[in-house]
Every structure is written in structure tokens, then in C-alpha cells.
């Protein structure tokens, strides 16, 4: 502790250099946190997924529907505590660029399967009792300025035409990662508006299982029921389903990681250079300290500690900046990341990275300082 003042004083020796170095490290870590948040935002849906919920869909393609008649048979499978169903609507609001999720869901079972969708009781009742009603997520309501009672027109792409839905509720998500950017409306309303040949076809079944560890067994049982029919199913946990999508974006995550590494490495090179330059100026001072009796090890720690302190300062600045800039901000990158926020783990990781950078960049100067022979250094001056 008493040495901290010495270390700090040394950093203030060349203020401009110290500030430049701290800022460049801050920049590197700001970028690192941002890129990492892109990755964690992609995974937000994984964090929010319900471990006791399975997704059942057509085995061959997302595009093919399943018969409504499957519901009863699925409900009888061992371990199944509830079944609901819905169709991905895939429409847009006003303009093809405004795309977000819409699901036509079975009202009678929806809330049982989706406890994380939170609604006022009055709104729930209103939603249930009106066929053309819908509930919208808080995020969507905020983005488009929708209020209860508004009639919003959704242009269908899979189910063509303009569909008018009345907002009867604005739901909030149970956790910070729960999606709040979806519209849910009545499946019956969709179904009865379709031509006969397209009626009673379900896009996706949601299955509630009694406990999470029954997931694998229940999935296999459901699929076994239909595997030889003309519409076989594929059942998996919600997490696995989301992960499948993420894996398609997957490579981009790897690329972002590569980017992040390149950035950190580049800045570290710069920092090493700076530390080495700084060290060269201090040989006589190191010699003086050793003359006074500072041991080799202490001097090594002081010089290394300086680099570490610089890096931690830069790291705190960069990570802190990222957290503040993206905290509760409206930044969604055009709707890609409804929930772009910097996780505590990301900040922690950033600080660790800064610490590692500090140790590595200070290594050479510190070791050199430790090894310095007083007599050699002093002979230049005295």
C-alpha cells in the first residue's frame, strides 16, 4: 500500500504518455465489451429459455405444419404436464422493414405454458374474451407508441392480407432476458379466416414437462408417436431449438471473437512498446532505489505493478464506458438485438483481460529492472 504512491507518482511522470496509454487500453476494452455483448445478445434467447418447455415441429422443415389432431396424443405422453400450440405468423407492420415476431396462439393453454409473460389480470381477461384482440410486448409498445385499445394492422406474408388486431394488453417479461417484442393473438381467429385446405394446421407445439430432467425421455416419446406417419415430428428443448438458430448465425460469432482478439492483441503491442520506452528512461532511478536497499524483487514488482495499474485503469474506463453507453439505451442495431446490454460477466471478463494485458506488457521492463546491476547503471552517471 505504501508503495502505491511511488507507483502513481511514476505514472504521473509522463502525463501525456500515461493518458494516451490508458485511453488506448480503454478503447480496446470498450470494443471488446461491445463485441462480446453482440455475442451475448445473440444468446439472450438461450438464457431466457425455459428448461421445462419442449418444442415440437415438423421433422423435415420449419415450413411444414403439423395436424391439430396431434395435440391430444401428445398430451398423453408420460411426463407431459401441458400442451399448447401456435403458428408463426411472419408478418410486418406498415413496412417490410418492421419485422418482429407474431404468434397466433391457443388462448386456453397459452398462459399455462408461458408463465414468463406477465399481464395485468384485467388485460388478460380482455385478451381472452375478444377474438380479434392481441397482446404486445413492452418493447414493441414503446417502439411504435402503441396503447391499449389501438387497432394495429399487420400485413401477412405467409397468411396474406391485412389483419387488424386490437391491443388489449401490454405484457412484460419475467426476467431481463425475456423477449418483450412479440405480438400474440388468437389462433382461432387465424384458423377460421383460412381456406378449408389450410385449416387446422399447427406450426409448432409447446409442451410443458413435469420436470426438466424428463426432457430427453419425453422428447423421444413424442417423436416415436409420429415417426412413421407422413408428418413426423422433431421434439427438443426450447434451448436446443434456439441454439439451432444461433448456430446458423454461429460463424459470425466466431468471426467477432477473432475480431476481438485482434483488437486486444494490437493494443497490447502498443502498450508493450510504451512500457519499454518508459523503462529505458528510468535506469538510473531504478539503480538509486536499489542502492537504497530496494531488493530486485521489489523493484520488479514496482515496475510490473505500474503496468498493471495502467491497464486496470484503462480497463475500468473502457468497460465502464461500455456499460454506461449501452445501459438501458435504445440501441438495438435496427431491431437485431432487442436487449443490447452489457452483462456483468462481460465486464468481469474485460477486467481480467486488462489485468492480463497489464502483466504481459510490463513483463519485459519489470524483469529488466529486476536484473539491473547497480554498478553498471551508475557508472554512466557518476
Amino acid at each position: 500500500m505504501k508503495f502505491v504512491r511511488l507507483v502513481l507518482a511514476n505514472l504521473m511522470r509522463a502525463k501525456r504518455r500515461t493518458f494516451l496509454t490508458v485511453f488506448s487500453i480503454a478503447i480496446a476494452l470498450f470494443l471488446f465489451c461491445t463485441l462480446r455483448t453482440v455475442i451475448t445478445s445473440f444468446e439472450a434467447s438461450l438464457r431466457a429459455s425455459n428448461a421445462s418447455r419442449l418444442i415440437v415441429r415438423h421433422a423435415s422443415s420449419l415450413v411444414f405444419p403439423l395436424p391439430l389432431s396431434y395435440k391430444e396424443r401428445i398430451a398423453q405422453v408420460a411426463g407431459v404436464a401441458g400442451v399448447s400450440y401456435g403458428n408463426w405468423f411472419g408478418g410486418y407492420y406498415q413496412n417490410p422493414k418492421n419485422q418482429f415476431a407474431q404468434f397466433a396462439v391457443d388462448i386456453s393453454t397459452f398462459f399455462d405454458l408461458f408463465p414468463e409473460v406477465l399481464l395485468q389480470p384485467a388485460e388478460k381477461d380482455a385478451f381472452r374474451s375478444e377474438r380479434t384482440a392481441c397482446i404486445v410486448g413492452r418493447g414493441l409498445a414503446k417502439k411504435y407508441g402503441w396503447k391499449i385499445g389501438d387497432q394495429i394492422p399487420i400485413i401477412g406474408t405467409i397468411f396474406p392480407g391485412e389483419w387488424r388486431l386490437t391491443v388489449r394488453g401490454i405484457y412484460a417479461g419475467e426476467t431481463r432476458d425475456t423477449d418483450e417484442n412479440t405480438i400474440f393473438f388468437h389462433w382461432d381467429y387465424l384458423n377460421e379466416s383460412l381456406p378449408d385446405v389450410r385449416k387446422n394446421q399447427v406450426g409448432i407445439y409447446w409442451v410443458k414437462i413435469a420436470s426438466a430432467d424428463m426432457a430427453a425421455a419425453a422428447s423421444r416419446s413424442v417423436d416415436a408417436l409420429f415417426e412413421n406417419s407422413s408428418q413426423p415430428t422433431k421434439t427438443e428443448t426450447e434451448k436446443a431449438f434456439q441454439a439451432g438458430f444461433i448456430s446458423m448465425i454461429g460463424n459470425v460469432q466466431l468471426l467477432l471473437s477473432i475480431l476481438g482478439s485482434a483488437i486486444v492483441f494490437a493494443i497490447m503491442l502498443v502498450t508493450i512498446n510504451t512500457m519499454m520506452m518508459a523503462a529505458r528512461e528510468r535506469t538510473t532511478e531504478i539503480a538509486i532505489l536499489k542502492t537504497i536497499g530496494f531488493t530486485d524483487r521489489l523493484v520488479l514488482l514496482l515496475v510490473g505493478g505500474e503496468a498493471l495499474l495502467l491497464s486496470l485503469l484503462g480497463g475500468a474506463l473502457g468497460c465502464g464506458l461500455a456499460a454506461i453507453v449501452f445501459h438501458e439505451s435504445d440501441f438495438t442495431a435496427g431491431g437485431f438485438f432487442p436487449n443490447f446490454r452489457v452483462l456483468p460477466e462481460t465486464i468481469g471478463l474485460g477486467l481480467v483481460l486488462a489485468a492480463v494485458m497489464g502483466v504481459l506488457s510490463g513483463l519485459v521492463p519489470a524483469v529488466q529492472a529486476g536484473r539491473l546491476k547497480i554498478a553498471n547503471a551508475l557508472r554512466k552517471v557518476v
Partner: protein
Amino acid sequence: MASENGNLVELRDVHKIYRRDRIEIPVLQGVNLNVKQGEFLALMGPSGSGKSTLLNLIAGIDLPTKGEVRVAGESLGTLASERLSRWRARHVGFIFQLYNLIPVLTAAQNVELPLLLTRLSGKERRDRVKLALELVSLADRDNHYPRMLSGGEEQRVAIARAIVADPTLLVADEPTGDLDAKNATEILTLLKRLNEELKKTIIMVTHDPHAAERAHVTVHLDKGVLAP
């Protein structure tokens, strides 16, 4: 501290050879020296005679190629690097020709440096620093940076730093070499006081005969050997 015959410093047949690339440069060639506790010794000699080298050996900054250096009861050659550092912190105060204060620290912070190696508390350290600065009559400049001090003042701060940990031995390498006559006299008077009032043993390298006059004993070093 001192040996039975009152010697604080004993050098026996000390040799020092420097190696530059493949060339060997002998600097000290069989030096024998005794310094008694409480003595003020001046070490004189022409340029290149090895005075500074000898000083470095006594202060434990360098090790002899051959021979024994005993200071304050320890044979310095036998000490491992870390123990040597600790020994030095406890026993030696070094004063350089070019003050060598750390520019980013205030006078008081510079003086405090040797105390950082002890287990004294913050308050204890501050008290000692105050005392040391009072001794060199610079108590009122304690929070000034070296660049705000004159040459003489800087050297006095350096002396304060050298004595603040109450070392057994004070070693000075051309302490007045860079000062004008007036400042030089001040410094030498201070050193004399430290020797007489605080009983500090002082070994001083100088090429100035007037400075040497202030010491008890003067020895001459020429071509690596002490003149008889």
C-alpha cells in the same frame, strides 16, 4: 557492529576486475583498508584510480572479484542478492555526486523512500522524515519538488534521505563535486556535524583537498592500490 578492534569496515586483499567484451580491466589490485567506527575518512586519488569502485564495494553495491569485504560484521561476498539488499537498507546511506533525487516525488517523499522498506507505520515514517529534514535545515521545503530546489538544497535532501533510516555507515561519492564553493562548504559542515554529533561513520570520495581536510583520515588510491 564493529569488530573487536573497533573496525567497522575491513578490506582484505580486495581485487576488482571489469570485463568489457573480451578485455579485462583491473581496477583494484589488492586493497587493504580498515575504517574505525565513528571515523570520517576521505578517499582521494586521480581520475580512474578506482575510488568509486572501492566505495561501491564497501556499500555492498558491487562485489569484489577476489578478497574479502567485511562491513558491520558481515562478509559482504557471502550474502545472497536479496539479503545484501536488505543489509544495505539497514546499514548504508549513500550520497551521490548528482543528488539523484526522484523528480516525481517531493522532498519529503524522497526522504521517506528508505523508510518504505521498514515496518514503521505511516505516522512513524512522517515523524522521522520531519526529523531528518530539520537536521539538514529544510523542514519548510518538504513538499517541494526537486526542480524547485537549488543544487545545494537538493544535496541536503539527499543527505536527509541517506540518514533517515539511521544507517550504520554513510558513504558519499564526490558529494560537493557539482556545487559552488559556498554550497560545498555548507555540505561539508553538515557532514562534519553528522560525524561529530551523531557519531556517524563517514567514508567520502573526493578529489578536492579542502574537502579532505575536514575528514579525520585521508587515504590515497592510485592505479588500484592504496598508497602506503
